């Protein structure tokens, strides 16, 4: 669906050496499903998306969307729906008119426009001017615009921006529904919990290049599935025993401690403690969160791009 190879984007500057927003980035998005695109502020997510959509000319590297080079994007553009950053519409036109004008470009009927307005919950506000919309409504209209063409590939850059909690849930459902319909959704977001709940595959970038990619489970495992929680009566004593045996362990409560070790090797913990007459009441692998993974992977990074 999307393939970027050695993608680089440098911005020249008259007052300095310039900025490299995207640096040697390799990205493959297969479909169908939801592919999350994560990175700290300024890590190059939006610039990458702009390169994919032909809005920004890459300094080097190649980009293919639905098998077409950027120069041939027009051959597949009817199969791509995209929202980049903030919603952008004519402020004095109604939401419906804005969509009608976009739809006119692809011969989309007014009934389809109405259908999309209903999908994003704006059926009763379609005739109001765009400038009268709340931030969340603007965002929903922008998502509606991406759906007009009934695209195979949907690219959403921070789609939950400005949405209230109910709107975020609706957005999550919508994204999942699109994936379930066989579409590929490529979504960048800061809402890590949402991404964890919504995405099948993740790519995390930092400083303009990819630092981790894979299924959500794999990404979590690679970073956070490296410790077990031990429930035992004498946590302090157990911690001393384990430390003496070379384990990294920390007491988290009167009867619990965490040990840094892969879950697959947790039996050695049991063995060491049993040898000193200490018996576990429970031992469970700890499931990390995407937030932990994200922070660990991008720790200390301050991106240069946007």
């Amino acid at each position, binding site marked *: 669906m999307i393939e970027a190879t050695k993608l680089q984007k440098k911005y020249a500057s008259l007052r300095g050496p310039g900025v490299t927003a995207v640096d040697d980035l390799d990205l493959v998005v297969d479909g169908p499903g939801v592919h999350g695109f994560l990175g700290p502020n300024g890590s190059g997510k*939006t*610039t990458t998306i*702009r390169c994919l*959509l*032909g*809005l*920004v*000319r890459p300094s080097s590297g190649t980009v293919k969307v639905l098998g077409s080079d*950027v120069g041939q*994007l*027009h051959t597949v*553009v009817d199969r*791509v729906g*995209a929202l*980049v950053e*903030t919603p*952008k*519409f*004519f*402020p*004095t*036109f109604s939401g419906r*008119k804005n969509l009608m*004008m*976009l739809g*006119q*470009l*692809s*011969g989309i009927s007014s009934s389809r426009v109405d259908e999309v307005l209903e999908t994003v919950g704006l059926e009763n506000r379609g005739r109001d001017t765009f400038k009268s919309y709340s931030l969340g409504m603007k965002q929903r209209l922008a998502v509606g*615009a991406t759906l007009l063409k009934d695209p195979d590939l949907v690219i959403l850059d921070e789609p939950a921006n400005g949405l209230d909690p109910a709107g975020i849930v609706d957005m999550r459902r919508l994204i999942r529904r699109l994936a379930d319909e066989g579409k590929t959704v490529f979504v960048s977001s800061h809402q890590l919990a949402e991404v964890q709940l919504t995405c099948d595959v993740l790519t995390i970038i930092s400083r303009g290049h990819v630092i981790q990619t894979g299924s959500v489970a794999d990404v979590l495992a690679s970073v956070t599935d490296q410790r077990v929680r031990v429930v035992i009566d004498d946590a302090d004593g157990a911690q001393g025993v384990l430390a003496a045996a070379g384990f990294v362990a920390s007491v988290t409560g009167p009867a619990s401690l965490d040990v840094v070790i892969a879950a697959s090797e947790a039996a050695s913990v049991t063995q060491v403690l049993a040898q000193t007459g200490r018996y576990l009441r429970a031992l469970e692998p700890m499931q990390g969160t995407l937030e932990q993974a994200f922070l660990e992977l991008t720790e200390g990074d301050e991106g240069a791009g946007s």
Partner: protein
Amino acid sequence: MRLFRTELTRFWSRRFMWAVTGLVFTISTVAGVVVFAKHSATVPDNDAYAIEQARRQTDECVRHFTESLPDSEREMIASDFGFDASSMTENEWEEFLRSEMCFQDPAWYRPDDPRFFATTLLVDTYQAYEIDDWSADRRDYSTANTFRSGVQTYRQAEDGLVGVVPVVATFYLVIAVLIGASFVGAEYKSGTLENLLLWEPRRVRVLWTKFAAGFVSSAVLTATLLTWLTALLYFVATQRGSTGAVDGRFWIDVGSTIARGAVIGGLFFVAAMSVSVVARNTTAAVGVILGWFAVSNIVIELTARWLRPWELFNNSTAFIREADAVRYTKIQGYWSTIYSHGYLRAGMVTAVWVAVMATVATAVFVRRDID
């Protein structure tokens, strides 16, 4: 074609366009009402009025010099005119005053004709009432007259049409500039250009479709506004003046003037939009173009007189007015403006200017990052 239709839809949906159009429409209408109010269909006996006024003034003057002038001054005045006052009888003195000293030409007292002449649409007010037959007289007031006979060692340029329609058409260029600059400037400001490129990524196609839709729409708008003004003033002429000189040829000239104004209106839309594409800002684009209008002739006069026949604004106005473009030359030691080329070539020069501007805008737009 879909893109073209979309751009047409946007052009005719814009509030700014309607605000400007509404303002111009209102001003035109008010102007029509004022012209209606200031003119009268009643034609006074102008000659009798003028003769009576001249006689009154003469009588007043004669009375003044007869009653109050000392003899010494009477002789001095008479001698200035080659008469001898000492040998003149009172009747001869009065006759001298009436014919020489106090002579008043009735022509000086002929009042302005209170009627509004339809020919004012194409020629200036003072010429308009002299025209009895447009087809026969138009040669005296348009470019096709005798100055280009080649008798002189240089060819004097024609001023062309200076009536309401050509002059107002020149002012309407400002409308085309405002709408053209804001057409794409608003898209940059709102970010909708990005949206559009997500639906049609071929930028050359996007830009030139905008040019085409804007050209057509601006031309139609200019023609409509000029036609409205023409209709208003023609109506005034039928009610408060004269349409006696109007014939088929007159309407052809009015129509062709409106058509030329419309073409230039379309071209200036493209020119302003081109500057706006480069500047990414409506205000900057309007400033650049109107600034150029304001100072171009001064700059050319001071720095590059050779550029005068090829300057954008001069050629565009010459085309509208069916006038000649001029160049500078020294005649008897003084700089004068003389014929350079006719109005059709002036139109082509304008089109070349705009084409160059559009090409530069395209080159910039194709390479520019939209972010």
